[in-house]
């Protein structure tokens, strides 16, 4: 279909009255992996929150469409049910809400009644094994007392269980050790190889290229000061690894 894709056009977004996004154009196609790189404070996480509808992120201009559906018209829960997923950099802890119950509620909300409880449980155990998570996770309270690595693994478990149409991963790699990073890479690879996740499009937000060794990007964007200043293939990530963002800053400075 012609309107497939997560299409972001001329997106402007304010936080506390300051314009952080200054006109973002980007399209993630089904099944493709886009990396969004940029230094701290460039607006990457703002893009993630404005896509998911966080109330403190005010979109002032532009459009976002998910396979033709206008996302900006929808409340956050409806955006998720339309097929958008955000892996949070700092997910909220919710004491008293067990991981298993939460995952079941989320799956039910996004894919009502599609799996009987026994099959859902089997799916959970399979994905947890892939992520190196102990089954005792299921009985813990959501992110309550979790280490940074445990939180990220739980975000990946949700990605695997929900198999969204489009997944935005906000710095999922930050704070992870080598083994955890590898597990995240394997989890994404397994999702992309599955029937449910074959067509999932990814927007991987990161400021280090190392996660991209585990998930090869089709397209790499560089964001600086609220704008996408450069788009290229995987080589662009390698260049950032060698030169940092200064080389790109100089280059765009020269153009401007």
């Amino acid at each position: 279909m012609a309107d497939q894709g997560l299409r972001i056009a001329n997106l402007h977004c304010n936080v506390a009255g300051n314009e952080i996004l200054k006109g973002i154009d980007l399209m993630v196609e089904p099944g493709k992996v886009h990396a969004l790189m940029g230094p701290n404070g460039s607006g990457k996480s703002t893009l993630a929150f404005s896509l998911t509808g966080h109330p403190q992120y005010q979109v002032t201009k532009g459009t976002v469409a998910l396979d033709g559906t206008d996302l900006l018209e929808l409340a956050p829960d409806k955006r998720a049910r339309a097929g958008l997923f955000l892996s949070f950099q700092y997910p909220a802890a919710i004491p008293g809400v067990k991981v298993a119950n939460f995952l079941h509620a989320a799956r039910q909300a996004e894919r009502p009644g599609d799996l009987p409880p026994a099959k859902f449980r089997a799916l959970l155990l399979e994905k947890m094994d892939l992520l190196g998570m102990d089954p005792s996770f299921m009985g813990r309270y959501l992110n309550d007392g979790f280490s940074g690595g445990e939180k990220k693994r739980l975000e990946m478990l949700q990605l695997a269980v929900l198999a969204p149409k489009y997944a935005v991963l906000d710095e999922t790699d930050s704070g992870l050790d080598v083994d955890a990073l590898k597990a995240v890479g394997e989890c994404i690879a397994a999702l992309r190889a599955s029937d449910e996740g074959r067509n999932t499009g990814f927007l991987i937000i990161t400021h280090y290229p190392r996660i991209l060794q585990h998930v090869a990007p089709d397209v790499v964007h560089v964001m600086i000061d609220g704008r996408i200043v450069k788009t290229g293939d995987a080589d662009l990530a390698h260049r950032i690894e060698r030169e940092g963002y200064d080389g790109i800053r100089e280059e765009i400075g020269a153009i401007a």
Partner: protein
Amino acid sequence: MLSATAVRTPLHDALGASDAALLPPEDRARALDAFLTTPSGRQKPSRFWRIDLDTIAPDARAIAPNAVAVDIQNASPRVVACDLITAAREHAPLLRRAFGTSGAGTTKFGALARAFAGTGAFVYVPHDADAAEPIVITYTMAENSAAFPYTVVLAERGARATVLERFAGGRDAFVCAAVEAVTEEGSDLHCAAHQSLDAGARWFSTRTARPGRNARFAWTSAEAGAGLAVLDLTVAIAQPGIDAGITSLFFPTGNQHVDVVSTVDHAVGDSTSHTHVKSAATGAGQARYLGTIRIAPHAQGSDASLRDDALLLSKRAHIDSVPALEIGANDVKAYHGATVGALDEEQIFYLESRGIERAAAERTIALGFFEPAIDRFPTEALREELRAALASKLA
């Protein structure tokens, strides 16, 4: 004033129908006078709280022996579990070791419950008996009645048991209940209560415990029903080595008023106590909580904690929380922590971002807030009952 003849005389006249074997008439008259003259010790009415507990009294005409029905379930052969009148006749020496010995009668409403004690339950767990199944006591209150359910529990040395009380019914009733729990060395007793009276009921509950040396003891108490709920939870620590817990949860909705006082009195050292209170309020629900930890000057080595969290779910809801730590000894541990707040927007957004509608997200978070307290209640059946009761308040 309650001592006015117009209140006093009919109540004294109503004592005439009470059982003399359980408690002689002169003791009942003394208890009734204590009720009439003892101040409630509770705060006066304020902008939010409009009920004066010092002037409240049952209507003498509503006092009748059939105001409350009791059902007692016990599966343990060594445990005696019977109604209170039967206990007064068949187990009088045992009953005397606990009935009236825990200090329940020294509070205003505890004295009233004692004055009219009749329908009730007696549980006796002999030494080293282990009641694997909880002893379940269900009180059902009649409409428009004045009811005085009274429970007495005696756990001997090394005994282990769980006593679960349910209170239901009572449309427009005045219900004044007491529980006395007396335990001996090395015993382990857990007394749980779920109050789900009709919204028109007024409910007063005095629960006092006197645990033995090296005993474990716990109160867990959930206030779900009644238009007015006044609860007094006390553990008197007069022996070393005790591990005592108090858990209280309440959730006033509509126009419900809940007033909870918990007191742990460390008169002797080297004992531990932990108090957990979880409350929420919505609609025009009002609650106040006074949590006292008292550590006497010679009670060295005491270890007491008090944790109190309140969640406000509407603009008109109100919860006052007052912790009071009175610490007379220097070699003790005493911890207190309290929070009062609304639902966290970041938590709501997180659940919404997983496809869960805002209303359901709010419900999930509010129920989760209670979950660590629910976890302390015995039996999965009761925990599910409490979750359902709380969920219906959030619907």
